[in-house]
């Protein structure tokens, strides 16, 4: 679980996961274009995310495709959030968003 928190502790890696959530199954090249980041930077971030099992990959022909793997995040949710009342937390989050505008979480 340490790996998961460390991997998530980077705005660039969170952006990368957001890109995969919107377009699952991207190649490295497509990810670089989406994120406007260098190939080297994206490669390094992907390594950290794969290590934390937040990104899963499959090979199709010559291409390596990257997928958002939310299973470890679900484990965090189960451990710390679901046990408490989810609805008051959601109400607070919505209030914060309305008052402050959207942020990157």
């Amino acid at each position, binding site marked *: 679980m340490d790996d998961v928190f460390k991997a998530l502790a980077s705005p660039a890696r969170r952006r990368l996961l957001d890109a995969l959530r919107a377009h699952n*199954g991207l190649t490295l090249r497509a990810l670089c274009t989406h994120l406007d980041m260098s190939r080297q930077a994206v490669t390094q971030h992907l390594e950290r995310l794969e290590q934390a*099992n937040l990104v*899963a*990959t*499959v090979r199709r022909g010559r291409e390596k495709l990257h997928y958002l793997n939310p*299973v470890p995040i*679900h484990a965090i949710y189960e451990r710390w959030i679901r046990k408490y009342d989810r609805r008051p937390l959601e109400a607070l989050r919505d209030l914060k968003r309305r008052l402050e505008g959207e942020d990157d979480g």
Partner: protein
Amino acid sequence: MGKPEFVYVTYIATTPEKLWSALLDPNLTAQYWQHENVSDWKAGSKWEHRAFDGARTLRLVGRVVESKPPRRLVLTWAYPDDTVPEEKQSRVTFDLEPAGGVVRLTVTHENFQPESEMFDRIRNGWPKVLSSLKSLLETGRALPELW
């Protein structure tokens, strides 16, 4: 078939044999999935996914495309009232690989119909099912109130 829509990976401290039976044994799926998976699990056979309630409501149906215990299981995955031909139904692959004392389980779900209602439903479903499966095999307790 194009590229898969979803790929999920989880590492579970168990053996491939135990994980295999957890995917197929209705008594075990009832515990962590709150549904029974029912079939003889031979390639070509039909399988059913029924709610573990009094009515045993039929929720999903499909066919066993490939079965290589305890490594790989491929199923078609459709709603009971689905009218599309079998080759156009969505498809789920379970790959089980030993990985340093634990088992790496990869679930690949692909071949969705455009605008499919299933797409949104399964997006929330798989992470829950896999967390609950992991919890059952590692601690003996599945997650409560999954759905």
